[in-house]
């Protein structure tokens, strides 16, 4: 198969252009509403409270994780709706291009727009605050370590919601949250089950609560601090390297298998 059948920069640009044209009204309305709310919060914070140095960073994390994940959950809505599914699936672009364009928009695209947008709004809002009430919050600084670490966390979490966007046909955001909740509970229960089997001596009677709480024989637990460090490093490495590529890959194959009969 020729590479142009899988990826063509030209076609990808057409896809971006099409997405921009198709969603321009929603984007303008949502951005306008978000800007108004941000200004209001900044004005209230500057006027009533003590001007905050963390205001925009807090807003940034909320915008990224609430706005970004909701936006990601709806990114394949076109494919799941009966009236638009055919139009999307028959669009002459490869599955990879369709996948990549939506992934780019919901990860780098959303993060960049949020960072740049919030920086501009913070300058404008605080400029107005100085003029009107002579007090201001600290301007949003995108060049801090915290902002970039939070953005990286967003990419990891986003990958689950991206898979949910492809996989679920309706109420993608809620269903993905439910899935994460059930998955976490299941993993925890499995963890408890195996821990109890493997470390039987230590956890014996642990699940038999008495008046004093759980019966846990702390003295029997001896873990080398080096081991804890190793486990933490492995867990961290797994967190940064595994989920995002895994969920994105599954999402790609799910997209490849999409048919109109799945649309509702």
């Amino acid at each position, binding site marked *: 198969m020729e590479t142009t*059948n899988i990826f063509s920069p030209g076609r990808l640009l057409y896809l971006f252009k099409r997405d921009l044209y198709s969603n321009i009204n929603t984007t303008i309305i949502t951005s306008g509403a978000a800007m108004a709310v941000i200004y209001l919060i900044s004005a209230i914070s500057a006027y009533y409270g003590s001007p905050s140095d963390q205001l925009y960073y807090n807003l940034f994390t909320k915008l990224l994780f609430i706005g970004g994940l909701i936006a990601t959950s709806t990114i394949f809505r076109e494919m799941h709706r009966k009236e638009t599914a055919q139009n999307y*699936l028959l669009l002459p672009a490869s599955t990879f291009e369709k996948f990549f364009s939506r992934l780019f928009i919901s990860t780098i695209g959303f993060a960049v727009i949020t960072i740049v947008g919030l920086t501009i709004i913070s300058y404008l809002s605080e400029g107005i605050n100085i003029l009107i009430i002579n007090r201001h919050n600290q301007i949003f600084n995108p060049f801090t370590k915290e902002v970039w670490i939070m953005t990286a966390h967003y990419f990891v979490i986003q990958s689950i919601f991206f898979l949910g966007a492809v996989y679920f046909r309706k109420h993608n955001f809620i269903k993905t949250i439910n899935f994460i909740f059930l998955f976490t509970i299941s993993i925890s229960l499995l963890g408890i089950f195996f821990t109890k089997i493997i470390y039987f001596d230590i956890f014996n009677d642990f699940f038999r609560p008495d008046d004093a709480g759980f019966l846990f024989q702390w003295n029997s637990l001896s873990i080398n601090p080096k081991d804890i460090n190793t486990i933490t490093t492995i867990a961290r490495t797994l967190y940064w390297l595994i989920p995002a590529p895994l969920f994105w890959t599954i999402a790609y194959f799910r997209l490849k*298998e999409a048919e109109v009969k799945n649309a509702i």
Partner: protein
Amino acid sequence: MLNISNLDFAYKKTKLFNNLSLQMEAGNIYGLLGKNGAGKTSLLKIISGLLFPNTGTIKVNGFIPQLRNPEFLQDIFFLPEEYYLPGLKAVEYKNTYAPFYPAFDESRFMELLNEFQLPTDRKLNSFSYGQKKKFLISFGIACNSHLLLLDEPTNGLDIPSKTQFRRIIASTGTENRLIIISTHQVRDMENLIDPIIIIDNGKVIFNESIERITDTLTVRKISNEPEYKNVLYSEKEIDGYKIVMTNNDQDQSGIELETLFNTVVTNPEGIKSVFNEGTNNGNN
């Protein structure tokens, strides 16, 4: 150009196609007929790669539709019965979607919009159902794709538009292009579609050219109830009976599509034997 071989397809447990095989050649405007639920739309969706067959193979110009290769997608256009158009004006739509189709003919597109008298200053989502359909027909033809799939294209069109549609489609057919029209509105398709394919109970029960149909079948009007032995189909009318018979007299008056369809679906075995007989006689 289009080759379907031993196709099986089911919606969950409802089997739709059972070992269906079909070949279609470019240069024709095929009419795909069938009763409600026979699977006409599903077949078009399978051909375009929107649905995947359970078993069997399907190839369009060498491409496997379900892979949805971009080269394949830019060479087909599927006008569905239900569709969505975004809140864009005609030219904006063209600027957004036409780049995906390398053979898109802009002047032909504008010419067709003009012919269908479609406004270019209004957003497409404010168009009526018929206007939207005419817009998509214009866009689809201008794409110059080798495979054009039209599902109930005359539904919702007014009388002048149906005439325009027939004229435009007739002039659109080229040697390299395969057009498949799925329809219930057989009267709108008279003198346009050829060959005729009829599907029923998950199989192709009829696939013949108009020339062969005319050579093989004839329609008579009689005043009394038909008693002829070789009547394939009869239909009571106000002034008597319309009957379909084997054309033994070289009559070239032809048969209306509606009557042909009724004959085929009510007497598939009779039709099969008449056409098989014709084939055997031709071979001899």
